[in-house]
C-alpha cells in the first residue's frame, strides 16, 4: 500500500466513520440485530438468487420444497403440474377439514387443501402433459432458458421420454438436473418412497418415542420431517452445484435419496452399533447423554377451563435442563431432592439409565401438585433453564415470533388471508432476505405467462392445447 503517511483519511482510522455509524456501534446488540434485519421491509432489499431460473417437475413435499427454498431466495421458479389434476397435495388436508378457495375461482369445486402449504411459495404454475411428444419439444424450449430442474419420477421415466440429464445436457450443458426420490441406483431403485418410509426404514423411528419398558411405541415425528429436511439438503446440493458451475461453466446431475437422510442425522447411533454392537433404543423425553435434560409431566394444566382439549388437557409439560453440576445442585435444592444430589453428584453417575428413571420420577412427583407455568416459573426464578412445551396457539400468540416476523399474516389476492409460519422463518438475512410473495396459485394459473409471453406461443394454440388437455 503506497499511501502517503502525511495524509490522514478518516476512512483509514479505526472507529466509526459517521454519526450514524457511531450510533450503530453504541446500540445494544439486540437492538442492532433488530435494526439490520428490519422485519417487514424484506421486499425493499435485493434478492440473492436474482436471475436464477428453475423448473419444478415435482409433487408432494420433498421435491417441491427443494425448489421453494430457491424461490424464497429470489429465483424465478416454474412448477409444472399435470393438466386438470395438479399436485396430489392440493387434495390433501388434515382430517379433510381445511380447503381454501380462490376468491375469483372459475372452477368453484377445486379448493386447495392445507397439505399444499409451504412447499410451493412464489412459484409460477404451469400445466403440461409430458406424454405428448409435441409438449416434450416445448419442454426443451424451457430447458434452454432455465438453469436447472428438480424432478421426482421413477428412475428411467423421464429418460424414456428423452427428458433425462443425458439428453438435456446436450441441449444446455450448463443445466443442473436433480432427481429426488426414495432410493436411487441399486436393488430398490424402483421402490416408491414417502416421508414416513424414510422415518421407518432409516433408523429414526427406532430411536424416537417412549421406551418399551415405559409402555411406549416407536413414534412418528409430527411433520413430514424427512421430506422437508431432505428438500433443504437438496437445496444445499443445488447451491453447491451453482457455485461449481460459476467456476467451470458445467451443469451436473444430482441424485438425492431421502431414505438416506435420517441415517446421516443419527449422530453416534451407527458408529455405536459398528464398534460396540449396541442397538440404540428409544429413550422417550429424556436424553441419553445428558441429565437432567428432559421433558416432565406436571400435575395440573395451565388452562383447566379452556374449551380446546389441547389447551385443557395437554398444557402440562415442561422442558427442564440442569445437567451441569451447579445447575443440578440448585435443581435438587429447590425440588427437595437433596439426597439425590448427594447420590448423583457426578454427571456420569446421574446420566446412567437407572439414575435418570429415579431423578425424573422424583421431579414429576414434585411437580404433581403444580401447573406447567408454576414449575417453569419456580425454576426460572431460581436462574435455571425451564420452558413450557408450547402448542400451536401459543406459537401463534408468541410475541417472539411476531416481533421477528416469522409468524405473520399474508393477504393473498386470490386466496385471502393466510397465516404464514414458513419462509421468513428459514433464516434471516441482513442484506438479501428471503421473502414470500404468494403462497400458491391455482393449477395452470401462469400458462399464459409462460407459454405466450416467455415462449411466444399464440394464444389460439394455447387454447387448443387446453381443449385437448395437453396443458
Amino acid at each position: 500500500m503506497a499511501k502517503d503517511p502525511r495524509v490522514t483519511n478518516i476512512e483509514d482510522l479505526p472507529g466509526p466513520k459517521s454519526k450514524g455509524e457511531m450510533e450503530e456501534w453504541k446500540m445494544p446488540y439486540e437492538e442492532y440485530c433488530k435494526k439490520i434485519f428490519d422485519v417487514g421491509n424484506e421486499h425493499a432489499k435485493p434478492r440473492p438468487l436474482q436471475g436464477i431460473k428453475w423448473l419444478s417437475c415435482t409433487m408432494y413435499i420433498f421435491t417441491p420444497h427443494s425448489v421453494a427454498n430457491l424461490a424464497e431466495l429470489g429465483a424465478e421458479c416454474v412448477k409444472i403440474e399435470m393438466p386438470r389434476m395438479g399436485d396430489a397435495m392440493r387434495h390433501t388436508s388434515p382430517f379433510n377439514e381445511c380447503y381454501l378457495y380462490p376468491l375469483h375461482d372459475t372452477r368453484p369445486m377445486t379448493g386447495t387443501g392445507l397439505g399444499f402449504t409451504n412447499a410451493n411459495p412464489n412459484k409460477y404454475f404451469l400445466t403440461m402433459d409430458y406424454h405428448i411428444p409435441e409438449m416434450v419439444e416445448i419442454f426443451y424450449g424451457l430447458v434452454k432458458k432455465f438453469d436447472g430442474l428438480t424432478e421426482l419420477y421413477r428412475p428411467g421415466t423421464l429418460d424414456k421420454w428423452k427428458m433425462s440429464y443425458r439428453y438435456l445436457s446436450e441441449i444446455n450443458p450448463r443445466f443442473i438436473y436433480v432427481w429426488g426420490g426414495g432410493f436411487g441406483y441399486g436393488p430398490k431403485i424402483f421402490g416408491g418412497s414417502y416421508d414416513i418410509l424414510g422415518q421407518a426404514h432409516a433408523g429414526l423411528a427406532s430411536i424416537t418415542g417412549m421406551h418399551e419398558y415405559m409402555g411406549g411405541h416407536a413414534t412418528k415425528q409430527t411433520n413430514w420431517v424427512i421430506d422437508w429436511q431432505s428438500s433443504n439438503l437438496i437445496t444445499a446440493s443445488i447451491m453447491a452445484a451453482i457455485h461449481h458451475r460459476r467456476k467451470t461453466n458445467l451443469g451436473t446431475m444430482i441424485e438425492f435419496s431421502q431414505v438416506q437422510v435420517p441415517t446421516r442425522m443419527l449422530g453416534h447411533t451407527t458408529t455405536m452399533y459398528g464398534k460396540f454392537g449396541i442397538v440404540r433404543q428409544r429413550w422417550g423425553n429424556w436424553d441419553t447423554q445428558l441429565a437432567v435434560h428432559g421433558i416432565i409431566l406436571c400435575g395440573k394444566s395451565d388452562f383447566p377451563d379452556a374449551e380446546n382439549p389441547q389447551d385443557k388437557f395437554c398444557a402440562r409439560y415442561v422442558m427442564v435442563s440442569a445437567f451441569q453440576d451447579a445447575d443440578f445442585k440448585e435443581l435438587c435444592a429447590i425440588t427437595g431432592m437433596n439426597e439425590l444430589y448427594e447420590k448423583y453428584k457426578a454427571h456420569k453417575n446421574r446420566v446412567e439409565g437407572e439414575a435418570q428413571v429415579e431423578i425424573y420420577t422424583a421431579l414429576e412427583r414434585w411437580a404433581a401438585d403444580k401447573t406447567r407455568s408454576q414449575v417453569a416459573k419456580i425454576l426460572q426464578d431460581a436462574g435455571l433453564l425451564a420452558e413450557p412445551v408450547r402448542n400451536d396457539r401459543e406459537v401463534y400468540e408468541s410475541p417472539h415470533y411476531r416481533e421477528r416476523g416469522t409468524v405473520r399474516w399474508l393477504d393473498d389476492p386470490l386466496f385471502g388471508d393466510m397465516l404464514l409460519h414458513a419462509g421468513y422463518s428459514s433464516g434471516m438475512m441482513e442484506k438479501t432476505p428471503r421473502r414470500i410473495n404468494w403462497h400458491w396459485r391455482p393449477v395452470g394459473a401462469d400458462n399464459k405467462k409462460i407459454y405466450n409471453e416467455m415462449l411466444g406461443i399464440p394464444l389460439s394454440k394455447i387454447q387448443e392445447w387446453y381443449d385437448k388437455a395437453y396443458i
Partner: protein
Amino acid sequence: MPEKRDIEINSRADTIGLMDMDVRPYPVTPPPSYDQVKPVYERRKALEFCDWAEDNLRFEKRYAKDETLAGLRVLDIGLWRLGHKFCASLFGESGAEVVSIEPPSGDPLRKLTPFGREEYMLENKFTGEKCGMEFVNETVNTHCVTLDVETEEGREIYKRMANNVDVLIDGMPPGYMDGLGIGYRQLKEVNPRMIYIWIGMLGQWGPWKDKQSKFGQWELEPFASCANSWVHNTGLAQDLLPRGKGGDPTRSGIWLADYVAGGQGYVNALAAMYWREELGGTGQMIEVTGAETLMDILDFDITWYGFNGSIKGRSGGWDPNLNQYAWNPCKDGYMMIGGQTDKLWYNIGFCLEREFTQFGRLIHEDPFLKEMGARNALHALIKTYSLTARWLRDTNRVEAETKLLEYQLAAGPILYIDEVCEFPHFKYRPWVYVHETDYGPLLIASSPSSYQVRAPFRCKWMGRDVGADNYEIYLKWTGLTQTKVNELKQKGVI
C-alpha cells in the same frame, strides 16, 4: 475371521473389544453384487439408463471428482450444539477449508457419551486421546484449533483469522462475541465481504431469545423443538396410551432442530455468496435458529390454527392427512403401510382380505370410505387402522412386507440400526460404510449429497484431537510460528 476363543463375561466391561469391527466384521452378509441388481434394471426395461446412472453417480468415484467450494475459508466457533457443527460439516464435505475453534479445554460435547459410559468413547489410536462418538460423527472435515477468545491475545488472533475468511459461523450465545468486541459489527469493518452466520436455538434477539442459566449452562435441543409446537404435536394421543406411560408429547430421538438449522444456514450462506460473487453484493449477517427453521417445515400446523383455530394434537404413528399412511404394531415390531390414491387404497385391501376377509367387507363396502378425501376424517382413520392392526397382529414384518410388495405398495418395517446397516440397498449404495479414521475403522453414514456427476460431497476425516491442527492452521492462516504457538499454549491462550 479371527479364531474362536473362550471368554468369560462378568460385567459389561468384559464385552468391550469383543464387538469391534475386526472381531465382528461388517457387513455380516455381503452387499448385493451388480449381477444381482442387473435383473431389477432389466425388468423395467431401464438397463441402459441405470447403467449410465451407476457409471456417473457411483459413490466410489467421489474422490476423483471436483470439490465445489475448494479454496473457500470458513471459520466456525461454538460449543455444545450440533447446529453450527452440521453447518460447518456441510462446508467441509463440499470442499471448503473449515477451521473450528474450541476453548483450550475443548468443546464439552467431546465428553458426552451415552449413559455416561466412558468405555464407549473413541480412542485416538496414535495419541490415546478420547472423544465421544457424537462429537466425532458431527465434525466432518473440520480442522480443530484451540483459542481462548476471552484473552486479549486470543482476540487479536481471532481477528486476524476472521480478516481472511469468506464465511464465519457463530454458535455462541447471543451477543457473546459482540461483547468481546469481535462480533459481526466489529469484524465487518475489516472484512466487509464476510458472510456471518449466527446459529442458535431461538434467536439472538426477541422476547424468547437464547438464555443461559445463572451458572452459565446453555439451552440445548430439544428447547428449540419445544418452543415451536413440534414436541407438543409429536407422540401418541392419551386416547391411545395412558398419559405418563407413552401417551405424551414426545421429543425426537435426535437433536432435530439443530440439523434443520445447520442445513438452512448452509443454504442461506451460499445464496449470500452467490449474491456477493455474481451480483456485486457484499458480506452480510445471517441469523438461523432451530426453533424457526423447524417451524418453517412444520407442515401447515400454525397456518391451520390461523384457518379455524385448530390446535394440532398427537396422532402417534398415524398421519392426519392421508389414509393409509401410518405405521402400526405388528407381531414382531412395527409395519408401515402407505397408499392414499384409490388404486393403492384398494390394493392394500386386496392384499389384506386374502387372509382377513372381513377387511374387504368392512372397508371396501363402506360407502363413506369410497371418496379419497373423506377417508382422512378421524373416525375413518380409526376404523381403517383398527382393522389393519388386527391383520398385522398375527403377521411378522417380513411376511407383511413380502405380501404388500406383491401389490406394488410402498410398505416397509421400522428398522433398528443393526437392520438398517444390513439393509441390502443401503449396503449397495453404500449409505452406511466403514471409514478409516484416527479412531480406527468406524461405521458411518455417508452424505446424501455424495451422488453427483461432477462435485459430490464427501467425508475425508471426522473428529480430531483438541487442538490437533493448531500448528498447521496458525502458521497458514496467521503466520504464527511453532515457537510462538507453544508460547501462547503456555499462557493458556491456545
